[in-house]
């Protein structure tokens, strides 16, 4: 480990020094650079992108949760429509926070935050939990019966009969209480992660912005690993598996029920939101970001790729992927059957982007990718 660390630190020193000394590295609109050696890229990413993403997610799930409570006291169509909209907003907000699932509080809290979005749900399990009035959503056995996918099922699967499920149906009371339990769990966990990051709470934001270098435990190392692991979920789970393209080399049929948000039908929108969020980390410009991102490290290091700059290659790939995904209409579960070519185009560019983000970019920055697809070999 020490040998590798020394080599990486030497490489990092060159990159970090060039960042701090170059003119573009010292522009700090939108954030403050404290005196000292704090990396202004980390400051932008942490203060202007990551923390606000968690704040937005918390706001969205808090709002959803209180509306669900209100709905449960006296369910009606207006309230149902309202919570369905708030659900979609919260799910979209999730897509801008999941990139950080594998570092900091999201990964160290119990349960881990990523368990809030395990799909597809086990509908049979949800139904049986409702039947026996088991609201204990945090057992391992209920991992596929909680979180956003469970809300998706509970709020949309019955289509026009959804309201009846909470009013006249024999299990209406149990279902209401299960709905409340799922939502309360989301709210608790999201807020716990936000508290972990906040300066007034666990202050992980400070750990993040001061975690310089490119070692495995540096903020750059952790962020790239987390973001890449999250981005692969786009390629594999949001697109690849539903298309029947994963695993590669095995002929599988298209699997419509494997899409995220199968019942609410917003799968393509969610995928696009996630893609743009990852792009935003790369460019450092989502939300209140000032443009200092991973691209800044690459541009300053002048890393080449096929005769041009690697940073340009990645920027272009992102733009292309966004364009392709924007051309994929919801519901994705239908599109993969009626127009799979459009989805495959997005999948193919996503694959190339994975290679750039998981191999070329980390290697250029001296970052080791430590999460693996070690599958029982």
């Amino acid at each position, binding site marked *: 480990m020490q040998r590798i660390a020394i080599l990486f630190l030497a490489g990092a020193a060159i990159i970090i020094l060039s960042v701090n000394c170059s003119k573009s590295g010292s522009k700090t609109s939108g954030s403050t650079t404290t005196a000292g050696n704090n990396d202004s890229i980390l400051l932008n990413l942490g203060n202007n992108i990551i923390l606000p993403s968690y704040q937005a997610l918390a706001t969205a799930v808090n709002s959803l949760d209180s509306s669900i409570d209100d709905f449960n006291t006296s369910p009606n169509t207006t309230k149902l429509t309202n919570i369905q909209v708030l659900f979609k907003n919260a799910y979209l907000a999730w897509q801008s926070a999941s990139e950080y699932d594998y570092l900091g509080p999201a990964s160290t809290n119990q*349960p881990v935050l990523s368990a809030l979005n395990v799909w597809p749900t086990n509908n049979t399990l949800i139904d049986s939990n409702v039947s026996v009035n088991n609201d204990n959503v945090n057992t391992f*056995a209920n991992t596929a019966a909680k979180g956003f996918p469970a809300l998706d099922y509970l709020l949309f699967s019955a289509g026009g009969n959804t309201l009846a499920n909470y009013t006249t149906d024999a299990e209406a009371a149990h279902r209401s209480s299960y709905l409340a339990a799922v939502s309360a769990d989301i709210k608790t966990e999201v807020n716990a992660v936000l508290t972990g990051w906040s300066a007034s709470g666990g202050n992980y934001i400070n750990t993040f912005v001061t975690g310089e270098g490119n070692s495995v435990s540096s903020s750059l190392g952790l962020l790239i690993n987390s973001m890449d692991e999250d981005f692969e979920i786009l390629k594999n789970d949001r697109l690849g598996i539903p298309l029947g393209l994963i695993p590669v080399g*095995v002929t*599988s049929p298209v699997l419509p029920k494997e899409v995220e948000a199968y019942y609410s039908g917003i799968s393509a929108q969610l995928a696009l939101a996630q893609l743009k969020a990852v792009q935003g980390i790369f460019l450092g410009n989502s939300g209140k970001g000032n443009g200092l991102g991973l691209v800044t490290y690459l541009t300053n290091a002048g890393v080449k790729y096929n005769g041009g700059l690697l940073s340009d290659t990645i920027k272009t790939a992102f733009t292309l992927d966004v364009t392709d995904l924007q051309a994929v209409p919801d519901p994705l579960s239908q599109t993969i059957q009626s127009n799979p070519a459009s989805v495959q185009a997005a999948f193919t560019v996503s694959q190339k982007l994975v290679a750039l983000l998981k191999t070329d970019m980390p290697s250029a920055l001296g970052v080791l990718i430590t999460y693996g697809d070690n599958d*029982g070999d």
Partner: protein
Amino acid sequence: MRRIIIPSLIFMIFSYSCKKSNQSTANTNYSVPTTYTFANVNDTASLQLLAMADQVMAAINHANSSPNTVVSTQTLDDMLNNTGGYFVDSALTLNASGLKLATCFPAAALTAVQDYFDSVGLYSQSTTAASPGVPGVSPSSVTPSKLYLLSPNGVYYSQVIKKAIMGMCAYQIADVYMADSINSTTDTTILEHYWDKAFGLFGVPVNFPTSTTGLRYFGSYSNQVNAGLGSNTSIMNAFLKGRAAIANNDLTTMKAQAALLITTFDSLDAAAIVQEMHETNTNIEAGDAVAAYGTLSESLGFVRNLAYNNSPNRVITNAQIAQLLALYDSVNPNSPSLYNFVGVNAGLTVAQIEAKTNAIAQLIGQIYGFTATELPLL
């Protein structure tokens, strides 16, 4: 070429007059190549054995494709004994090679593998998905195209077998070649041959770790734990240094490298257990029980391997192995229920399950002295 001839000439002259060991005429001014490309490398037999192992595994894994895809125990036994011509030959001729995987296992492991083959044969006849008490084929929930034939206890025997094969490789390398074999002769050619056979069982290309293409068995696992342990370079360097030493009659250096390899393979098997606990946690956190049974079964295979290592330098004691097995299932340590481990009927939380995987990783860490930077213990 010329450099090798001169020391052997000296050896011949001196050995005529005094019957001392070769060490007094060792040439210590040799360079060690950076890839395993020496004159006379012959690891073909090992490559044939690994090819046989690959095909045995492929035969076993047919049973995963769907319930009631029957795999014949007799066929698996025959493949282990290389009878019946079941192998597919390529550039490596297998069926006529005269080699048998069966003879490479230590006795206790061979018995275990034969039992595992019986289980696979029996459970592959199940017509249903797996559930507690019922063998069958079930999918990973995260990657539904990945299918697993599970025992009534949720054990994925395919991987327990694969790890037993790896244990066989480690046993041959550490307990046979690096021990009795190289200590039984001073003949350069014979020593080189033993060394090459050992290297061939590692499962890496000659320019490892510059290249990590085609890693198999322990080669693959060294790569998985390499970040903290540096096992890729330490193992490869030991193989390279030892082989160069043999060619230059530097048997002292050869024995030093052998000693290193013996302890390294022991700790590599242990490190693999911790790696599997990491992967189990990832599977648990993703809600993927079936994949977790898979990685738990892999770890179980590695735990059982520890007992087959009969080197006096083995770190873990038999009592500690028993302690470790009890962490999987205190009631039935020799036949653990993985369903109980994840508390399928007991409503365990993720945190409670991870306390168990943690306990296994921590115990290994204590026994083998892994530090958190070498091998993050979850």
